């Protein structure tokens, strides 16, 4: 299953130097949480993940060609 991924802020370091990249997941079913593990992104560094323009939960199962954006933790406002 191929998904498209955008990493935001300091999380960029966990992917290639590109705004969007594709990742081929070698399994039929993959949740957001599992995707973060595959990409070696510590869950503690992640604020949330969105599919398209909407936040999704870590338990959401991804679909072929999903575009997901991973946001960093932020402080202050």
């Amino acid at each position, binding site marked *: 299953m191929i998904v498209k991924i955008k990493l*935001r*802020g*300091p*999380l*960029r370091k966990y992917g290639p130097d590109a*705004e969007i990249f594709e990742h081929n997941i070698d399994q039929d079913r993959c949740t957001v949480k599992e995707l973060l593990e595959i990409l070696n992104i*510590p869950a*503690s*560094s*992640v*604020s*949330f993940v*969105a599919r398209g*323009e*909407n*936040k999704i*939960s*870590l338990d959401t199962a991804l679909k072929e060609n999903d575009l997901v*954006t991973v*946001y*960093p*933790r*932020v*402080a*202050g*406002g």
Partner: protein
Amino acid sequence: MAYTGTVLRVNLTTGKAEKENLNEQWAKDYLGGKGLAIKYLYEELEPGMDPWSEDNKLILMTGPLTGTLAPNTGKLAVASKSPATGTILDCSIGGHFAPELKYAGYDAVIIEGKARKPVYLFIEDDRVEMRSAEGLWGKGAHETEHILSETLGDVITMAIGQAGENLIPMACISSELYRQAGRGGIGAVLGSKNLKAISVRGTGGFTVPDIRKVAAALNKIKRDDTMTDDNMWAYSDGTPVIVEMSNSTGILPTHNFQEGTFEDFEKVDSEAVKGALKAKKACFGCPLACGNYVETGKTRVEGPEYETLALCSSNCGIGDLEAVIEFNRLCDDYCLDTISAGNAVAFAMELTEKGFHDFGIRFGDVEKYLEMPGAIAGRAGIGADLSKGVAAMADKYGGNDFAMHVKKLEIPGYEPRGTWGMSLAYGTADRGACHMRAWTPPVEAFEGGEMDPYTVEGKAEVVKDMQDDNAVKFSAIFCDFWALSTERMAEVLTMFLDREVTAEELTVIGERVYNLSRLFNEREGFTRKDDYLPKRIYNDKMTKGKARDISIPLEDYDRMLSEYYNLRGWDENGLITAEKKKELSL
């Protein structure tokens, strides 16, 4: 000892400038910054005093760590009684003014009275002069700073633009071109005193015992606790990264808070801002450098920050980054708070589109939008109405239900229907609607699943704890972009104070500071009735995005507010009980 122990008191009416000792007991009880400034104001201002009168005072307050090597401690608290709200008002301004003031030998400057003619204040160590500013009056903050640098040499300046001179209640103070003490009309307090600017040069310093040990410890803290994933968003993106996050969670104010998502968000998000980025900029001693200095073919600014993007872009329906940057630059030069200015423009747009009054400006109208900063600062045309803020506009033209303010201070860039704790944060913020007293989106709208954003359950405790944490953080003066624990604050303070500071002590100080600000407002007549949001938040459901079909039922808000008062030890009317005052030594 990182306090200088000296306060400079300047009376603009008499022209006298005198040194006095810092009140050491107050410094122990309130630390510095926000808390200590509010303590001085609480003790020195008569209840009911007109904030526009010369009886009002302006306090510039450093913190115990100002000017040290401790990271993210370079800000200055600027406090007064707000002419916009009538509440206590403390603002925070970054850059390099605060350490320069400390190096000149002062923990604080208290400015009283009113000059007969425009003046600026020049402080160079022991030398304090009030000089004529008649040649500067009428000029923007940028030109004013430039002229003062040419005249005085190497100084750091805080100045007001035309908005402050014209007593616009959303006027801010500017420093180093692009740093602002933004909210509540703090710049208009300078204007009301005929004080155009304050320039400072400090050539002193202070000693730290065992500097090698302290420097090594601070370097370790910077490496392990500052330059980490939790904080480096400030360097990689700065606050614009929040645009996309807010849009994805349905809390990006759009079209005067009618919606929480903006169809053109990608034109103004962090990636778009990066496209115009020329340099990163930092405050004194900050390794995070959140400032984005941007240039387009036509304009330049340091920013736009998230708040400007939310209130002056999506909230006005302006999906044109260059226009937003220019609007931002104009506001900075005239010295207008972009949160309040963006709200006033958006409210005028909705009043026009809904037929309440034809201001001749509609959502997305870039040409008219760019005329607004000058019109507001100069009270020209429709700017005369907008300059008074949304509460006054609603009094004149109607639309109270969607005049987005609390206690007459316009609401910042987080739509509360998509993050319910934020409604309580706005309702109970000490200076009117403010996102810097408690900022709940990270724990409810953003971070995964632990707390439902669309319930009031548990929010009262979250908001209270955040308010107290930030109260002590802004009193010790740590930047809010450093996500540090109270234990870490205590560790760093202990390095520079001649006593051991504990996390428990800081927790009490935070609560004491927040209660003192409430007590100030209570003395001015504020009660529970003033802790509510406009009816739109309770009655209208948004139609798009993650928070569509959601509003906050008023009975739920009432329940949350009562629970909050109970946790605080305040009565049902929001007044601080005698027991709580005694407990906190108020």
